């Protein structure tokens, strides 16, 4: 059965070694012309005769088995073990802007813990009028908001500073997801505890920490805390997944993912930044001269072409080709995306699937007629503050090679006449 083949997906290795050659791929992927009637049409198929599953077969559905290759993956050599590690969203295989929870990247510092709603407590203490403790049920009684934001790990694309390294958009850009969150604004909770005791709020902070063994504490300026930070308990309409902080996580729009504390257990109003391990020894960006930037919270504007890309090669032969990708900015909304087919010599405007939303992913498309020409594909994002995504050379000029975090450079995919693609760097 033809469909059986699809289930296995195309292994990158077999593709690159030529086992799945252009010709063979093209036959299965395109309706053959002039070769007689298509048996899928001319012959009766089993699924058109027998019955399928009943409504009681799948109380909670997972993707059909043919999509089993669309999963999170990790890079084993990156970290000492998988408990304090990261995996990557399969962005090369997704479209639209909302990331399904089940394949949205995970980053844990002491593993994903199981915390029941009944066992959940959230404390607000420090410079507040009345230190408070909330249960999960309490949180559901505050006025609620629903908003969509991207969450990007500061280390996304971090392995690419010194050169093109990982061969796939999932691995170079997959430390990102975009979900519709429902919860309570942090402002609402802080006001419930009362901020009179904090005095002048302009130089105050909130320190947030999780209930897991790492606690992953971070300091957030009061200005941001009162602006758009959410205490969220639903994502994409349903409860947060365990790996994303069930039952409650912090959402810090536009700012690095490490601050989006999962299993949120405490919010402390402080007179100073705590300078925890996650905001000193990590998540600080060392420049070429050895001086390090700290408090680099905002995620700069960035984009990547998700298809074609190394894990999503062109398999349909010449003719119409959809180039698509994602763009985002932690400073505001995406206002435009440019695409180059020739490594940045010439650019054209991509079509945005919808107007850019504040601090959320934007999908873009460029429809071209590909005749097998060699392409050096790039995308370049513009945001509502006038910021334009820089080239790798421009970034290195300011920051050197040792920053680890905040690599928002323009990505290049080399698309070969065979339709295969490779992560490359260009002059």
């Amino acid at each position, binding site marked *: 059965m033809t469909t059986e083949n699809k289930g296995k997906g195309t292994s990158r290795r077999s593709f690159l070694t030529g086992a799945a050659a252009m010709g063979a791929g093209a036959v299965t992927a395109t309706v053959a012309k002039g070769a007689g009637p298509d048996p899928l049409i001319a012959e009766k198929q089993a699924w058109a005769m027998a019955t399928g599953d009943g409504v009681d077969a799948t109380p909670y559905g997972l993707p059909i088995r043919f999509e089993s*290759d669309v999963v999170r993956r990790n890079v084993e050599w990156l970290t000492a073990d998988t408990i304090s590690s990261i995996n990557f969203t399969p962005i090369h295989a997704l479209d639209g802007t909302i990331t399904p929870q089940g394949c949205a990247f995970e980053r844990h510092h002491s593993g994903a813990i199981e915390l029941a709603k009944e066992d959940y407590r959230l404390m607000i203490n420090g410079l507040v009028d009345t230190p408070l403790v909330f249960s999960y049920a309490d949180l559901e009684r505050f006025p609620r908001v629903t908003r969509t934001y991207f969450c990007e790990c500061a280390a996304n694309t971090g392995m690419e500073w010194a050169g093109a390294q990982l061969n796939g958009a999932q691995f170079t850009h997959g430390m990102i997801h975009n979900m519709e969150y429902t919860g309570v604004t942090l402002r609402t909770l802080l*006001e419930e505890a009362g901020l009179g005791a904090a005095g002048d709020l302009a130089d105050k902070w909130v320190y947030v920490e999780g209930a897991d063994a790492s606690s992953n504490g971070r300091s957030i300026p009061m200005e941001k805390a009162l602006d758009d930070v959410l205490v969220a308990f639903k994502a994409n309409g349903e409860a947060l997944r365990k790996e994303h902080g069930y039952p409650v996580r912090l959402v810090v729009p536009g700012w690095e993912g490490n601050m989006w504390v999962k299993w949120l257990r405490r919010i402390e109003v402080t007179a100073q930044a705590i300078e925890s391990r996650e905001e000193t020894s990590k998540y600080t960006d060392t420049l070429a001269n050895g001086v390090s930037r700290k408090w680099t919270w905002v995620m700069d504007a960035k984009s990547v072409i998700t298809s074609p890309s190394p894990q999503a090669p062109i398999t349909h032969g010449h003719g119409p080709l959809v180039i698509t990708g994602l763009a985002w900015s932690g400073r505001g909304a995406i206002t435009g995306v440019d695409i180059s087919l020739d490594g940045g010599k010439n650019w054209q405007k991509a079509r945005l699937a919808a107007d850019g939303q504040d601090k959320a992913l934007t999908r873009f498309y460029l429809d071209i007629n590909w005749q097998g020409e060699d392409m050096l594909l790039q995308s370049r994002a513009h945001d509502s503050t006038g910021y334009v995504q820089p080239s790798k050379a421009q970034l290195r000029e300011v920051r050197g090679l040792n920053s680890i975090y905040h690599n928002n450079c323009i990505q290049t995919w080399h698309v070969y006449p065979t339709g295969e693609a490779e992560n490359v760097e260009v002059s």
Partner: protein
Amino acid sequence: MSKYRNLALTTAMATLMAATPAFADKMGLGRPALPEEIAAWNLDVSPNGDGLPVGSGDVMTGEEVFAEHCAVCHGDFAEGVDNWPKLAGGMDTLDHDDPLKTVGSYWPYLSTAWDYVHRSMPFGNAQTMSVDDTYAIVAYILFSNDLVDDDFVLSNENFLDVEMPNAGGFIIDDRETAEKHFWNPEPCMSNCKDSVEITMRATVLDVTPEEEGADAAAAQAEPVQVAAAEPAPAALAPAAATAAPAAPAIDMALAADGENVFKKCKACHQVGDDAKNKTGPVLNGVVGAKFGHIEDFKYSKPLQEMAEAGAVWDEASLTAFLTKPRDYIKGTKMSFAGLKKEDDIKAVIEYLKTFQ
């Protein structure tokens, strides 16, 4: 003043100020936090020493505590094992390629080290270090970095006197000035370069993981062929009862539960065909094996001594060890606190039996 720059700073501050005095009506939800509750959770320590409890610890004590609880990952001299963080060394490397960032070479505040050790370490057994032991460990880390002498005693009294070498090595996010030229809404659109050359290719490195998810799943689904474990020879270990005459068939359902429990062990131990020694030895064949059965793994002295005396890992000794590792083998390098539930121990042993 604001702690960070923002293009929309004036607007944001205006909103903030306008909203500050007129707080909304309270909802009356939640309840006041009790002082004991705040004390239990409010553990963070600030650079100025706020939150630091009274106590002290010296370098020599720190060396012992470190060897027992930290060295398994961070090395006896804080030099780091495998990919685990190095805590010492790296002085003057921050402006080199691949700088070595340690507590000594990079961390700007000592409070961060104290806070992190006290609240989040040891990995897999967090929040178990006493206040004095934490002072001792931090003193030892300072010593490992040649920042204090071996007779140094760290306490809440002298904590702020310790000078961290890289304290002045940080600047606040300056992207909006240093990278002002990235705000350029009208970038070049055509003929922007004379030529474009490929300067680097990812496939040359070949470090990208294979995509064999489907194949791996298929392999796992195959029935596991398990040979009955050899009857263990009589063991000397006190908890080792008479060895079972013939190992019964493996309870695969229980082993499946054990696979879940084994997640707690995975940070340090591997099993299966490609298993390698990590911070702990490979556990293939451990059930029924003599103590110290992995030849190229460096076991703790006490474990080696028990091995020489002929001790064997049977269900009784494994159960005793997994219940309280440090009680069963005094001086074991395994920093794991132990499994609390008897069912978990049974399950994980059953799981280990499937790797012979």
